[in-house]
């Protein structure tokens, strides 16, 4: 490890500039450089702004999360927004003062887009937080240094603003051989890096050494500078003496400073399409980023100011300004004495890749390396586009060896397939093609728009694919469920068939038995029957258990529902009275159902227990099966109704007023369903009573009698029960509206009295359900009144 070398400043002159082989890039253009006008004066500090606007998204990656509130007082350098995840960065207050707003504010963006910004009104004191100096930073581990850089909020300062710490921490498996420091600054007009290299070379070189240490001392550390910056080159060469760092100088040509192009010039390697430079062992950082990293690590300075070239003929002063992030551009223009009458446009970035701003009321951000305020004469509006004659000048100028004329052709015809086969996505939007186009065609704009369209289409396609997948899964699931159902049905069929066979066998056996031992071998018969009955009774027992479980779970659900109700009442007490009452009703109904089920259970138990004869067994088996099915079905219906009531209530609790009505309707429907299910269950119970009666009747018959039941001898009680049940059922069916109402009233009265009882009990116990219960009672009373009213009306 060469960290020790670095510490000791061990001279390790690997190669001089002359020894380095430089490569050339295809294409490129030579726009007028226009660099001199901003290099006439040294870096000037801009005055402290009255307010700063700090966007939460000044970098590539997730926007930062604000941790301050409006009204908070903050100090210069104080953390005001945290990074959200790995590819994100924090934001620091660039002045001391009061947070006056956290709101949408126009960003420096080509579209004039607005986004969340923290706005600080300066108190003019510029009181700073204590900065943590680290004279011994060389002893720190790479990881802790990376953390410092991340926490300082440093984004790549040359272009897109990728978090520096992320770039300095390449994926495992990428061994970094080249650290390239980009001092190219190939865009016309911009001199921010140039002047930084001239004035602060020491800190830059210290920063480069720092970055090199973080990356594990790559064998090649090189600062690339175009040959149009002789002073910067001389200063840097002087400063890197006695370090392993090289300074490589190459001819000026736009866009040599593009990351991919610089890599090609200095290493001869190309970054594979769609990959990051780290995949070929290269990390590129801007000189200003290296400087900022050093300041952050050594002096604990967070990223709150930067050097920006402010240039253009509409300004009286053209120079490089050290400006606080968040300073409104209008302040910067005023500071450089802008002549607003002459100002024709405002460009952030260079003239080749920068974007035109919609207004000067946007802030300086982490990536603002240049602000151009040209006159109309300096940058005239582009003349109308002529036809493309496919002259190929664009292809000659393209540094990525694309065919811009063909891309243009396909972009116009929206032939996305052809665009991709012509590598549209390898276009770096450098603008060289538009620059040379003799027909003034805004080629880059076509490419940007085509890229946007293709990406949009891809997103849509992905969405469609996902929903198609979902649909297919669903189909599959349904098919599986169907198959399972089918299997179950088959199994049941099989079981029924077996039962039938058994039945037949039993019959045959019984007949044989009766034929063979006609004369009262009753003992045998009775023991047989008893044995069989015992085996049979196991079934009802199981069913009983099931039933109990069902009731238990229903109770549980109801409890949950009421608990939820109580909860919701606490939060929105005024909204939920109605719905509380409905829960109560449901509760009452459940207990009713439970009771009825118990009744049923006793009756079935009774019937099974009492039917101790072989003659009834056969029938009983069938009856049992039918009954079970029916009861289960009804139970299910009740359960589902309960469920839907519960769900609706839950939703009701969450819903706002508008949706309440809808949910109430649903709730009512569900309750109706429950009522119907209960009615059916009641009917079914009646039938059961009838059967029970019949079975009672059968017990009266002697055990040795023939298997066929003969309903002629004493059975008054049973037949009476049958008659009663049948009457009840038919009465229900033929009930008039009035009668129904009456019955409803009866039911309601009963429920009311029950509810009142419960309420009383609750009051006695001091239960917390008291309130809910009283509400329920009131609700029932109202309902009862309504029903009575209806009856009267009828």
């Amino acid at each position: 490890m060469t960290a020790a070398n670095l510490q000791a400043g061990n001279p390790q002159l690997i190669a001089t500039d002359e020894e380095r082989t430089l490569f050339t890039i295809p294409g490129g253009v030579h726009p007028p450089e226009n660099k001199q006008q901003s290099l006439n004066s040294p870096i000037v500090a801009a005055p402290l702004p009255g307010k700063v606007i700090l966007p939460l998204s000044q970098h590539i990656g997730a926007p930062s999360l604000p941790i301050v509130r409006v009204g908070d007082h903050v100090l210069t350098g104080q953390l005001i927004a945290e990074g959200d995840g790995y590819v994100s960065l924090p934001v620091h207050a660039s002045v001391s003062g009061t947070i006056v707003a956290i709101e949408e504010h126009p960003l420096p963006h080509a579209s004039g887009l607005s986004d969340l910004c923290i706005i600080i009104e300066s108190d003019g004191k510029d009181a700073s937080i204590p900065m943590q100096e680290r004279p011994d930073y060389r002893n720190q581990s790479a990881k802790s240094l990376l953390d410092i850089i991340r926490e300082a909020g440093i984004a790549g300062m040359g272009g897109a603003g990728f978090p520096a710490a992320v770039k300095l921490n390449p994926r495992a498996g990428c061994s970094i051989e080249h650290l390239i420091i980009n001092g190219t600054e190939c865009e016309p007009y911009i001199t921010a890096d140039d002047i930084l290299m001239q004035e602060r070379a020491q800190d830059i070189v210290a920063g480069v050494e720092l970055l090199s240490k973080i990356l594990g001392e790559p064998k090649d550390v090189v600062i690339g500078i175009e040959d149009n910056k002789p002073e910067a080159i001389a200063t840097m060469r002087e400063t890197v003496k006695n370090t392993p760092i090289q300074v490589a100088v190459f001819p000026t040509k736009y866009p040599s400073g593009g990351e991919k192009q610089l890599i090609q010039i200095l290493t001869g390697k190309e970054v594979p399409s769609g990959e990051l430079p780290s995949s070929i062992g290269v990390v590129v950082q801007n000189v200003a980023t290296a400087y900022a990293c050093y300041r952050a690590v050594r002096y604990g300075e967070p990223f709150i100011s930067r050097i920006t070239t402010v240039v253009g003929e509409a300004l009286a002063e053209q120079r490089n300004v050290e400006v606080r992030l968040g300073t409104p551009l209008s302040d910067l223009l005023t500071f450089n004495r802008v002549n607003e009458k002459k100002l024709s446009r405002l460009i952030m970035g260079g003239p080749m890749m920068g974007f035109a701003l919609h207004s000067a009321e946007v802030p300086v951000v982490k990536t603002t390396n240049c602000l151009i305020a040209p006159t109309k004469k300096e940058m005239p509006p582009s003349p109308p586009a002529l036809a493309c004659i496919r002259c190929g000048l664009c292809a000659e100028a393209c540094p990525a060896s694309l065919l811009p004329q063909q891309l243009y052709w396909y972009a116009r015809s929206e032939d996305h397939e052809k665009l991709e086969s012509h590598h549209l996505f390898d276009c770096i939007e450098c603008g060289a093609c538009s620059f040379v186009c003799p027909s003034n065609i805004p080629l880059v704009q076509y490419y940007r728009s085509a890229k946007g369209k293709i990406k949009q289409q891809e997103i849509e396609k992905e969405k469609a694919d996902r929903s198609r997948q979902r649909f297919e899964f669903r189909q599959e699931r349904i098919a599986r469920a169907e198959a399972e159902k089918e299997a179950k049905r088959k199994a049941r069929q099989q079981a029924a068939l077996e039962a039938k066979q058994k039945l037949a066998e039993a019959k045959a056996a019984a007949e044989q038995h009766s034929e063979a031992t006609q004369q009262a071998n009753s003992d045998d018969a009775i023991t047989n029957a008893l044995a069989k009955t015992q085996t049979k009774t196991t079934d009802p027992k199981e069913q009983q258990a099931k039933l109990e479980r069902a009731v238990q779970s229903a109770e549980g659900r109801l409890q949950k529902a009421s608990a939820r109700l109580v909860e919701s009442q606490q939060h929105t007490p005024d909204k939920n009275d109605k719905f509380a009452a409905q829960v109560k009703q449901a509760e009452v109904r459940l207990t009713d159902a439970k009771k009825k089920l118990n009744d049923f259970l006793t009756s079935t138990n009774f019937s099974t227990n009492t039917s101790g004869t072989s003659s009834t067994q056969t029938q009983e088996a069938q009856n049992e099966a039918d009954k079970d099915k029916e009861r289960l079905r009804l139970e299910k219906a009740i359960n589902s109704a309960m469920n839907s009531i519960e769900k609706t209530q839950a939703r009701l609790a969450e819903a706002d007023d508008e949706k309440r009505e809808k949910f109430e309707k649903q709730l009512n429907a569900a309750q109706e369903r429950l009522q119907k299910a209960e009615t059916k269950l009641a009917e079914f119970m009646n039938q059961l009573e009838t059967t029970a009666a019949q079975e009672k009747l059968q017990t009266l018959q002697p055990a040795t009698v023939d298997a066929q039941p003969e309903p002629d001898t004493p059975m008054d009680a049973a037949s009476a029960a049958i008659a009663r049940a049948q009457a009840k059922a038919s009465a229900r069916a033929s009930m008039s509206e009035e009668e129904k109402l009456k019955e409803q009233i009866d039911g309601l009265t009963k429920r009311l009295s029950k509810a009142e009882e419960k309420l009383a009990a609750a009051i006695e116990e001091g239960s917390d359900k008291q309130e809910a219960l009283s509400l329920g009672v009131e609700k029932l009373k109202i309902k009862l009144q309504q029903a009575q009213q209806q009856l009267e009306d009828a």
Partner: protein
Amino acid sequence: MALIKQSSPHTRGQTDTTKIMQTVILATIPGILTLTYFFGIGTFINLILASAFCLIIEASVLKVRRRPVGFFLKDYSALVTAVLLGVALPPYCPWWIIFIGSLFAIGIAKQLYGGLGYNPFNPAMVGYVVLLISFPVEMTRWPAPTSILTDSQSLPGLTDALSLVFGFASPVLLDGYTGATPLDAFKQNTGLMADNLYASQAIFREAHFAGAGWEWVNVAFLLGGLFLLYRKVFTWHAPIAMLASLGFCALIFYDGGSNTSGASPLLHWFSGATMLGAFFIITDPVSSAVSNKGRLIYGGCIGIIIYVIRQWGNYPDAVAFAVLLMNFAAPFIDYYTLPRTYGHTQSRRATDKIDTSQRR
């Protein structure tokens, strides 16, 4: 403060289409002067008439198509077509020949396909080929270069020229100046050894290295072409490929001068429309291949076709046919000659299916 909102770049270079067109016209001047020197005033009359017809036709079609007439006329592209057509037509040809040529060049080959930038075929060559096929007599009536005129012959003066062009002259006048072109003379040779042929024909006898007059015309166009290369109006690929393949073919089939031999490479290079074609016709960017590799193939194939037709076809010269044939093939060439883009290990064909999932 009304700020201009415009997408990058905010600065632009000095080249523009109009200037390119003007440069091309400028570069034809040596050729035109040489033609005039050897063949008289006829070339000028051709140029003036062709320019007038082309501009009028262009303007009227633009009018019919409801396009801004002045805006498009100012791009000089119609004038370039007119100049190329004018120098390609035989001097003193009737005015209606020029008119029909202009009509097909501008009206049909250019504007009907959508105007500048959309024409798949070189307009001047379409006009030329239509004329050559329809009016072979008028189209093959080239004057003899002034240096080999016999005593009884002389180039027409301005009055004679005008009467020839506008159809008042007697046919007798025609014989007073026409003669076979070097390629004609070579093609019509039956049985003579090359040396004998050269000795018997004035057009070769008076020549320095190819054919009298024509060699200098070609040198002049070559100079104009080199000027355009220097001005980076086009790349070297297509012209050099065409000249190379033409020379290569000629070299293969040149046996030193037997009676079945083809013409020498020098004769091929400096006869007919070779240099005009190489630097002014096949370099038309609109109808040629787009990539440098594609242009090499495009130019090379044109050279081969020129040789094949000159040697074994029915026409003495073949630049126009070769160019039109390769115009057909240009889109096809484009599909298979995409340059290798930065970050890709090899170039792709435009017909390849793209796997978008591999992109970030």
